[in-house]
């Protein structure tokens, strides 16, 4: 079992540039007093982590905001943690299978209150549309096992969704996963070939390489569109690709409306 002190001790020896407090995470679907208990504990543990950090000059300790899906608890948590003035803040306790409707509201609540001059890191996100949406809501950093895990199951990521390369649909598909992708896999191999070797370890690598490249390029495109003052346009165009029939889920349209982005109808 980890204590805040032990967690920081291990992280100090690993030496990562960014390290995370030990938080008390409850499953996002939990209700009742346990959520509040976890939120208060996370604040106390943040203080213990800050105290235990022997390398504050070399490593950046991020706080992790908790509070489940309760607006009051989350607001309280954010306000308390901001007082600790850590180098960055993570939005935790989400990405656990909760309603997307609740998810985006908690993200935007957190970003409304978190300081503008510090990075906001939404943990466990994720799918391409979630990445785009969260960026629109003011998030800066993400992490997710999804691209590599789904690669190991034979799924390749493209803007419009996923290709399940195990499917016989691809037996004679000699195109690369994505004709415009510069990654090693798309430059050297076809969907049909990946389908043929789907049971070999190397296919997991090849699809992982593509999926990570896809995620990196997506973030690059988001940054580029922001730089060019064309981010809303990018969002609209991206969502058109994901939902060609324009049957956008209501949580998505509402989330984007909250930041003045209207999707094409």
């Amino acid at each position, binding site marked *: 079992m980890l204590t805040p002190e032990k967690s920081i001790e291990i992280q100090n020896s690993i030496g990562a540039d960014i390290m995370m407090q030990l938080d008390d995470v409850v499953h996002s679907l939990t209700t009742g007093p346990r959520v509040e208990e976890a939120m208060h504990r996370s604040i106390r543990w943040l203080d213990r982590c800050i105290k235990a950090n022997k390398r504050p000059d070399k490593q950046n300790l991020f706080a992790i905001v908790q509070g489940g899906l309760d607006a009051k608890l989350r607001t309280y948590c954010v306000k308390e943690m901001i007082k600790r003035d850590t180098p960055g803040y993570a939005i935790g306790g989400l990405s656990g299978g909760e309603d997307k409707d609740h998810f985006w509201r908690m993200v935007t609540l957190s970003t409304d209150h978190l300081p503008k001059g510090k990075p906001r890191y939404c943990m466990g996100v994720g799918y391409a549309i979630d990445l785009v949406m969260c960026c629109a809501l003011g998030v800066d950093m993400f992490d997710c096992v999804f691209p590599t895990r789904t690669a*190991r199951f034979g799924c390749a990521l493209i803007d419009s969704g996923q290709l399940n390369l195990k499917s016989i649909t691809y*037996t*004679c598909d*000699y195109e690369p996963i994505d004709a415009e992708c510069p990654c*090693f896999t798309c430059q*050297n*191999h*076809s969907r*049909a*070939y990946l*389908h*043929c*070797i789907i*049971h*070999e*370890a*190397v296919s*997991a*690598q*090849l699809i992982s*390489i593509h999926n990570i490249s896809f995620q990196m390029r997506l973030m690059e495109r988001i940054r580029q569109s922001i730089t060019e003052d064309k981010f809303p346009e990018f969002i609209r165009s991206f969502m058109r690709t994901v939902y060609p029939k324009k049957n956008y889920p209501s949580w998505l349209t509402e989330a984007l409306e909250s930041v003045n982005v209207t999707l094409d109808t």
Partner: protein
Amino acid sequence: MMKFSVSKLSPEGGRLGVLSDIHQSSEQRHVEVFTPACLMYTRGGSVPHLTLDMVRCLPHQSGIVELTVSSFIEYRETMEGFKDGLAKFVGIPNALTYLAVQDSCKSAAAGYNDKSTVSVWAPSGRFRLNSASFMSFQRAAKSNITEALCDGDTREGCSKKRIQKAVNKTLQFLDEILEENLNAETCQQTEIFGVIEGGDLLSERLRSTKETAKRAVAGFVLDSFGESFMKEETRWKLLEPIIKELPEDKPRMLPQIGEPLDVLLAIENGFDLFSAFYPYQITGKGCALVFSWSDENKKTLNDQTSKSDEIKEGFYIDLNNKRFAEDFSPVLSDCECYCCQHHTKAYINHLLVTKELMAGVLLMSHNIHHYLSYFEAIRQAIKSDTFALMKKHIEEQHMRTDR
């Protein structure tokens, strides 16, 4: 047809040779293969665990990649639709390919060949081939060298009658395939290697050899020679009489032999080509090859956690072993492979414990690098008349290896 010329016959056994003029497409590089050599073993056309960028870094490659019918037979539709052959489909358009019927590593299940067909096992199940369907597959594969369809189901203990049938069927397939190849358009032709069967019976092996040698084949393959096919004592006694019946000017392949000493014994007896499946087997066990091939080259096992005089290694070390958990030195201190240049034994041990895919990548990159370097050393040893010394050195390590 392909040319094979012997550049040196060693007084200690073994020979140096050059394979050239292999029938190929205009896209493929002109390759001269210096023998003894090993063909690059693949599964589904890929070197196991390694992406092409890792493969390109490997030294001393022969230039010929081994592909198996069994890994592609269920994708025949895919290949026929592609039209440009397996090498291009796999992503190695410049490489020359050798099409083998079965996987060198894993023998096909026994008892599934019948009067007119041979069974190959694909991931989805069994496929039956006769010479016509085999050649139709080969034409889609566009392999440069092709092992003729053969019946190798002659495991230790099978009857003389069964062995005779295997020899007869294999010869019949060969004749049909040679004729088919002769009648094909030049651009569709392939170099055919004749397969020698005969189980563990010397009389049948000799019959198969003599008959195959009468045909216009480009080379010879000695099949059904691996572990499950005959006793150790029988195996090595068969080679000399078989070789005597084979012409000097054609290469001889022994696909199921890969262990370092076995390779030398085979070369000593006059074999030229092998399949590099052994590094894959070693990798699968979580082991790394550490054997040396001379006193000068004796690579130091920089083992910080144990006394070197207590532990004398055989051909490989088992990185699963706890004693490597804090060994922060590379597998071999002066190895130039990717794994030894970038990682430690402790890291590989950690990857094995956490069951990461990366363990296979690192181990395979080291093991195949080591094995290809071994073959280069063998060629040098024959050249410099130090083959017998090398054999002695390998024998000592063979004694220490747990098999």
